[in-house]
């Protein structure tokens, strides 16, 4: 199930809210959320519930063992085994097909295609279990979790399928006593509605011209068309992903849970490093705390550590070479920024740093968008006028005009500008502030609903004849 669906909005969420607020016992509430979380997860692919459940339970058992044998070799052995199990799960479901494809390309004989489907959320919950086990092993979590707590930590549906990647420490106390209050509920409502609007109004509408402008291998591609398409895609993926995180955080608040923030206006960055401190922060934080620093961080083998972390960051996004290139590209930029580029950029007016960051990020998105390397390379060449394409054509001009308003508003909305303007308006018209916010939230929910119903329109036509 996804948050931005009619079924979730008008059946799942209301039903859960009623049951949750009818009963006031914290333990019941937590079990209710666990139950609904498994229902949420089981919705599309019920069989994977078994995977989620066994991942959580092995995590629980390993943690018990590690805590019991703390300080001995056994703890270390158990910890290594536990990490291996989780990496194994992730590797098996996500990367085996990729490995076989690549081996088949170089081996003299052919391995059979494995045909493994990717269970949703596996990239997130395995990482969360790794966080938990590492913290237990290092002693940052003094006592291992109860089965109830670990189930809740791993399965809580707002963050289950697309993050943010939370830490057990963050929510341990909250599980015992969810911080339910009207104020936090109301905040959650606003946050959820903002996220819904980002996803349904911005991301979905931006996605239509993107798929038309960035068609792999299209003969109609133009220089400016690719640039425009990539700009739209950058906006689309930001609104999609950050909208999802906003909805997750908002739903968490409605039930009295605080989840960590995941985005902080990534497109106002001044460097590649800055971008990654603002984009998918919970993932960046994971790689920093559980990979980069344990490897030695900046102190020893920095180049190797950067390489490992950025290779993994790219590879985590998908089992395909383009994501690896995308990750290493950022790793390289961050390395040269640390060596010298950062100090250069600091000396220039801020405008140039923004320009640099925006350009490298857009070029990065080209490698993220095209999963096939040939198409990515063609698009790159086209963008720099090296592929013999026209600058623009009539079709591009039509796309530009018919999306212009959305494009401009989206650019403003992805910076703190919109927020600042609203805050200033609120100061100038204090008597209207709160009323306008309520009407605004209701309007966004209504518009999103209308667009969601609209997206179910599916005419049965012979378009071609």
């Amino acid at each position: 199930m996804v948050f931005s669906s009619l079924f979730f909005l008008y059946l799942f969420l209301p039903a859960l809210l009623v049951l949750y607020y009818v009963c006031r016992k914290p333990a019941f509430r937590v079990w209710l959320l666990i139950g609904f979380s498994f229902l949420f997860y089981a919705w599309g692919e019920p069989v994977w519930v078994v995977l989620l459940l066994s991942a959580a339970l092995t995590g629980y058992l390993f943690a018990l063992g590690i805590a019991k044998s703390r300080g001995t070799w056994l703890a270390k052995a158990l910890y290594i085994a536990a990490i291996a199990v989780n990496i194994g799960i992730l590797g098996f479901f996500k990367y085996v097909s990729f490995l076989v494809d690549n081996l088949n390309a170089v081996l003299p004989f052919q391995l059979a295609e494995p045909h493994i489907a990717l269970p949703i959320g596996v990239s997130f919950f395995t990482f969360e279990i790794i966080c938990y086990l590492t913290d237990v092993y290092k002693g940052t979590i003094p006592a291992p979790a109860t089965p109830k707590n670990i189930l809740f930590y791993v399965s809580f549906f707002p963050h289950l399928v697309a993050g943010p990647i939370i830490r057990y420490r963050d929510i341990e106390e909250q599980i015992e006593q969810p911080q339910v209050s009207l104020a936090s509920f109301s905040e959650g409502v606003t946050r959820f509605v903002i996220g819904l609007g980002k996803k349904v109004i911005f991301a979905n509408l931006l996605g239509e011209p993107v798929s038309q402008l960035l068609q792999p291998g299209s003969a109609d591609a133009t220089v400016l068309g690719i640039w425009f398409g990539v700009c739209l895609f950058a906006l689309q993926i930001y609104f999609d992903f950050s909208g999802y995180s906003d909805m997750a955080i908002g739903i968490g608040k409605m039930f009295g849970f605080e989840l960590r923030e995941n985005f902080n206006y990534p497109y106002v960055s001044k460097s590649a490093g800055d971008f990654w401190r603002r984009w998918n922060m919970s993932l960046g934080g994971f790689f920093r705390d559980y990979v980069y620093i344990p490897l030695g961080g900046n102190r020893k083998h920095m180049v190797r550590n950067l390489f490992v972390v950025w290779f993994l960051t790219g590879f985590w996004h998908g089992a395909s070479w383009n994501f690896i290139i995308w990750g290493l590209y950022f790793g390289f930029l961050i390395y040269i920024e640390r060596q010298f580029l950062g100090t250069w950029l600091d000396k220039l007016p801020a405008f140039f740093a923004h320009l640099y960051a925006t350009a490298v990020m857009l070029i990065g998105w080209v490698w993220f968008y095209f999963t096939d390397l040939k198409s990515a390379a063609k698009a790159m060449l086209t963008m720099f006028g090296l592929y013999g394409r026209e600058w623009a054509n009539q079709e591009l001009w039509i796309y530009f005009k018919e999306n212009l308003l959305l494009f401009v508003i989206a650019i403003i909305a992805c910076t703190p500008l919109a927020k600042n303007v609203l805050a200033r308006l609120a100061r100038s018209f204090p008597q209207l502030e709160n009323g306008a916010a309520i009407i605004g939230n209701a309007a966004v929910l209504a518009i999103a609903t209308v667009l969601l119903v609209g997206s179910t329109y599916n005419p049965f036509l012979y378009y071609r004849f």
Partner: protein
Amino acid sequence: MKLNKKSFILLNAVSFLLILFGLGAFNLLGTHSAGLSELEQRNLAQTPTFTWNKLFKGEYARELESYFSDNFVFRSSLVQAGAELKGLKGLPEKNGVSILERGDNTASSSVTGSDKVKYLIMNNQAVTLFNYSAEAGKQYATAINTFKASINANVRVYSMLAPSAAAFLDDSKYRDMSDSQKDAFNAIYKQLAKGVTGIDAYSALEQHRSEYIYFRTDHHWTALGAYYAYTQLMKTIGEKPHSLSNYKKGTITGFLGSSYKATLSSSLKSHPDTITYYVPDGGYTYTIGAKKSASRQVVDPHYATAGNGYYAVFLGGDFPQGEILSGNENGKRLVVVKDSYANAFIPFLIPHFEEIDIIDPRTYKGNLAAFVKNKKITDVLFLNSSTAARTTSWAQLLNTNLGMSGKKA
């Protein structure tokens, strides 16, 4: 009205919950008589039947979810409102131009990149953009040539490619967004073997380009457009076309066709088409299907509202197979291998043939050469829209469903 912090918190939560629970309750309580969605020409999802097997495969959840969204309260009004809202994303201008891409989602199709169609909407008119595929043209010509070689040499074979409205737009900047259909068709006609005659409907239509020969909200030509194409066929086979004034004429207003249904464009909605139809003299019988149905009219305004859409005025819509017996005993028996462009065209042929068989390769399965032999066919006409020059899927239909590649169907 000044709201203090406390009442803001309360009202914000309450208004959200009101919408959620209000619409949610409406949905649960509302009487859902799903049935047919006229606009979408499909049956809306029904209450799914439960089986454990479906539950474990996740199918039950998916069906339940599509049932829920297909039968959402006020769905059809909200769908229209959604289309209007989407229209606000561009420059606020009158007569805004837009491009919308849609895929063929019918059961018999496998949507690939080239099977998608781009609708260009300007001046209250929608056209589908045309991209020539030389490979598609080659396969189409080869299929017809192979077929011609496999039948009695005395059977006359014709190919008529019907251009789409994109070719005749007044404004060259929009016209040039498509490849030239004239060049594409000529390239295909040139590849036809000796004994297969290409019929240049394009030129006939071009001479009348300023007339109402194409619908604006539908991808088909009008009966008038089909008539001009018919005169070109008559010229080629050396017969005199019947004059339009001999027909009883009627009109149906308020026609919103396939392009509107695909795009829900508000500029199309506010400028519906008018269908003008020409009723041929009676005295013929028209039956559909292999087992003979009761005789029907080839042009009948009643079909407009009978569920298949207004264009069904002509031949009653698309069927796998049809047969018209005209009562003229001139010994000429024609089979038309066609797509829906032929529907408005075929009624004009009645005075010229003793028998007209209609075969739609999208849904008919059977060997065409055998059909020609068994039915003692004298003339074969392939009448196709520009789709045949745009994607190889049309040639593939001819080969697989009609056995035209020479292999058994």
